[in-house]
């Protein structure tokens, strides 16, 4: 023990024998005070429980008090310009406190009357009542949700024939912009048993709504607000006599997104009828402007109870509306991956910006021929032209010199092969194949031919549209990979900021960043040069830099000569286009994926062009797709 501590302790005065009587006297006084004060409590208890007890017992049995929960309005969700994407409207539910009607005959009569008034079958009402016996007495249950005005009026007119029936106002979701950004926003629904068990501590009860997907689910704690309560005094038949106390509900916090509703609309309209995704990001920050997945989910029809038929038809839709294709589905990135192959080749010194290869239309490796998409060949191609015209043979050769593992390190540094960390559920990590990966998962050695397919973005490669957009952002801004951000800030209803989100750089790309300028020139050419594959993304007055991609779905079975329309839908190629603009000082990056859309240049580039045109406020005068 420390000396100083010992000294302090030894200096504490002892209790002196002489002081003991005084101490005892004081303690006796304290004891007396304690006993007297407790005596007051005992007297009061006697007064309440014995003297007045019978009165209070009667009051408690008459049960004249009701507690009604006042649901809180959920927070709004707004776009970056303050446009409301999700808000609330009032709705009216029919609620019944069964035990207000004394006899079972009377309860039966009320059920019948109500069925008629609501225009539903009695069995529907009975089904809703089935749980009632498991609940404490006098627990109100909901018999009908979101009734219309005429029904409301009919019930109100007959309320004296319906003891215990009450109309409860409840705010429910409204979508002023329609089913826009549906996968991102998500939806809410009735809380299920499991959710209730997990979240009981947080004040959830049986009839609550809770976020089921997307922002509604992830930011549930901010959006939900705090329930209020109304304490009512009722008469013997449950009719309201007076309000005893009210605690008003606190509305939830508002969430402002980085999404631009205008652009999101443009992207979703351009995708209409197709399966695919559009991602647009600010090049210098990683803020998302568009996160669209098509077909959209009809979230505005999910309000209240989701009709089973609707659910079934969504499940059976061949275009698969449920997954958020921008982040939950992955596809081989196709020729958009050539950006990475070029960067790896340049940085590792296997090529220089001046390297020229000869493309005869295919490359022979052992007994296999690896074809270029242009069967006649490109002839002598420079890197710039190889990017502009998407020459496969050029990148086969680069890939062959690099080897798959060196390539993989660059792919990872651009954000591929790992989750971006976006706060949305079920994000796919994609896949960046390596020799080690193949040995581990397939128990087979790596084949050199596979390196060739990987080098042009096919084969085992998998990436989400979001990852391809992150890669494009890093290419455009000089090598910084940003974490995609979709929430700008969370504010209280009075406007004070609860939480602010900031751009977060995840890292920088591997290799010499000066080479990004070389690739940049190739990407500008890929949109603007004479034989550019991405020509359909050209804009008046703004230079666009981009890269097309066409992902083979059917592999070797695919018959190249056939036109896209002749191939069965499920075997058609996926179309990619990823780009940024203005090329000199990039602001926005747009990535488009169209599932089974065919060629990237013809199916995806026009969609990216529409988004860019809207972003820069250009009238798409030469729009040949509309």
């Amino acid at each position, binding site marked *: *023990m420390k*000396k*100083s*501590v*010992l*000294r*302090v*302790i*030894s*200096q*504490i*005065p*002892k*209790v*002196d*024998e002489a002081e*003991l009587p005084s*101490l*005892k006297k*004081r*303690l006796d006084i*304290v*004891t007396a005070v*304690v*006993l007297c*004060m*407790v005596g*007051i*409590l*005992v007297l*009061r*208890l*006697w007064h*309440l*429980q*014995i003297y*007045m*007890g*019978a*009165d*209070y*017992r009667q*009051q*408690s*049995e008459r*049960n004249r*008090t009701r*507690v009604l929960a006042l649901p809180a309005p959920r927070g709004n969700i707004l776009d970056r310009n303050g446009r409301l994407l999700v808000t609330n409207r009032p709705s009216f539910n029919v609620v019944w406190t069964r035990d207000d009607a004394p006899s079972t005959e009377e309860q039966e009569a009320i059920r019948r009357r109500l069925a008629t008034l609501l225009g539903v079958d009695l069995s529907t009402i009975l089904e809703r009542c089935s749980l009632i016996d498991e609940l*404490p*007495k*006098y627990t109100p249950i909901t018999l009908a949700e979101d009734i219309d005005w005429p029904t409301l009026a009919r019930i109100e007119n007959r309320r004296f024939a319906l003891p215990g029936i009450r109309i409860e106002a409840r705010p429910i979701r409204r979508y002023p912009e329609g089913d826009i950004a549906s996968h991102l926003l998500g939806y809410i629904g009735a809380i299920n048993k499991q959710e209730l068990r997990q979240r*009981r*501590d947080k004040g959830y*009860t049986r009839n609550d709504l809770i976020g089921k997907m997307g922002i509604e689910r992830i930011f549930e704690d901010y959006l939900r607000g705090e329930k209020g309560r109304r*304490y009512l005094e009722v008469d013997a038949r449950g009719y309201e006599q007076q*309000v*005893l*106390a*009210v605690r008003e509900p606190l509305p939830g916090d508002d969430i402002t997104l980085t999404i631009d509703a205008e652009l999101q609309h443009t992207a979703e309209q351009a995708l209409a009828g197709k399966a695919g995704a559009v991602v647009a990001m600010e090049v210098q920050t990683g803020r998302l402007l568009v996160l669209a997945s098509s077909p959209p989910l009809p979230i505005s029809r999910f309000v209240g109870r989701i009709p089973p038929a609707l659910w079934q038809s969504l499940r059976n839709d061949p275009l698969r509306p449920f997954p958020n294709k921008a982040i939950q589905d992955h596809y081989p990135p196709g020729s958009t991956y050539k950006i990475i192959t070029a960067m790896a080749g340049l940085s590792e010194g296997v090529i220089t910006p001046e390297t020229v290869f000869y493309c005869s239309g295919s490359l022979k490796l052992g007994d296999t021929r690896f074809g270029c998409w242009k069967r006649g060949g490109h002839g002598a191609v420079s890197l710039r032209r190889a990017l502009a015209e998407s020459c496969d043979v050029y990148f086969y050769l680069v890939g062959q010199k690099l080897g798959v593992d060196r390539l993989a390190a660059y792919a990872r540094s651009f954000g591929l092969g790992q989750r971006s960390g976006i706060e949305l559920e079920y994000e796919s990590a994609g896949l960046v194949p390596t020799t080690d990966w193949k040995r581990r998962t397939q128990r087979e050695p790596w084949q050199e031919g596979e390196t060739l397919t990987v080098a042009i973005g096919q084969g085992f490669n998998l990436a989400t549209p979001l990852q391809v957009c992150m890669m494009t952002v890093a290419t455009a801004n000089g090598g910084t990979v940003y974490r995609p951000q979709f929430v700008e800030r969370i504010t209280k209803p009075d406007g004070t900021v609860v939480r602010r989100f900031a751009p977060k750089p995840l890292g920088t790309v591997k290799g010499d960043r000066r080479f990004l300028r070389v690739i940049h020139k190739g990407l500008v050419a890929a949109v603007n040069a004479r034989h550019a594959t991405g020509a359909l993304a050209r804009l008046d007055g703004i230079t666009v830099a981009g890269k097309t991609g066409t992902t083979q779905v059917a592999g070797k079975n695919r018959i190249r000569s056939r036109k896209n329309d002749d191939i069965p839908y499920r075997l058609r190629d996926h179309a990619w286009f990823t780009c940024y603009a203005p090329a000199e000082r990039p602001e926005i990056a747009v990535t488009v994926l169209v599932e089974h859309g065919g060629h990237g240049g013809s199916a995806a580039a026009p969609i990216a062009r529409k988004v860019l045109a809207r972003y820069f406020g250009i009238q798409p005068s030469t729009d040949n797709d509309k």
Partner: protein
Amino acid sequence: MPQKHDLPDPTPPQPLFRFDRRLLANFDWVMLLAVLLIATCGLLNLYSATSHSNPGFFYRQIAYYIAGLGLIGGMLCFDYRRLAAYHHLIYLGMLALLAAALWFGASVANTQRWIRLGFFNLQPSEPAKLALVISLANYYARHDTAEGLGLRDLITPGLLTFIPFFLIYKQPDLGTGLLLLAIFASMTLFAKLRLRTFAVLTSASAIGAYLGYKFLLKPYQLARITTFLNPDAPENRAAGGYHIIQSKIAIGSGMKFGKGFGNGTQVHLDFLPERHTDFAFSVWAEEWGFVGSLVLLGLYVFLLLWGLNTAIQARDKFGVLLAIGIVSLIFWQAWINVAMVLGLTPVVGMPLPLFSYGGSSLLTTLAGIGILMNIRMRRFQSLPRHQ
């Protein structure tokens, strides 16, 4: 660990884990039994109040109790006089926590009372009560005069009390703030005041209370007082008199023997707010009646008197005052809580120690109990008294 023979006290405090066998023999079984009895009542009551709506409370409270028993064990491992040696650190740590709650605390219902620790939300005003008791006990133990304390002697303890009071008042949590003042008053009175000092202080606090009522109270606090004075007035029924009316109906309807475990209708229909925390006693009184309430109050009286008995057993003045402080801490909380639910005092947020749900309060109370047991355990461990 070297023994220092040059020190005035030849029996220095025992080091950690080198247990004197007398310590075990002196273990305070009585206090432990009293705590366990109250704990049993509290857990039964919590189960009845929350099992149908939120069973998590019950299991978490059991976990807090287990942690709390561990804490008692921890409080017994060292000589309580070390608390006097480290009172500066304890006090400053407490101020730091209170300031942290104000500045980065989680805002619940517009108050900044909590520090989120992930697994546990700490309410630093709870341990603050105990820290204040330790500091005051240390001060008064060293300033004990036969003729009583003068005004000048009260400046330091007054400041010691006022700083945490102010930080807690700022949260705002007036109830806990006033509790600190009550602890200060109790310990000061016990430490003996000069008559003149007493007269001056009484009149000063009367004026202070009046001014506070006039200028310092927030509107909702004022409303609670006016509500209390006239709970049945229509405008007050809405403002908060409702809670008291419901609580009185619950307690009164318990009558002589209560409605029985799990049968409290007031409770189960959600009429009672905060039925697991501040209004836990109402639930007990409704279900166990007058008899059950007397039993529970009796257990508290027993625990408090046993604590006072510890004070007279203590070997030094620090121990005496520490015991008095802890007893007053438990007493005032319990009394104010029960008086509030009986409609005798305005509604303030005050838990019933050992009984209400809540980790911070329970652990603080059990730490205090641990100190009481520590004092009793080490009562024979000193030399014959000086002179």
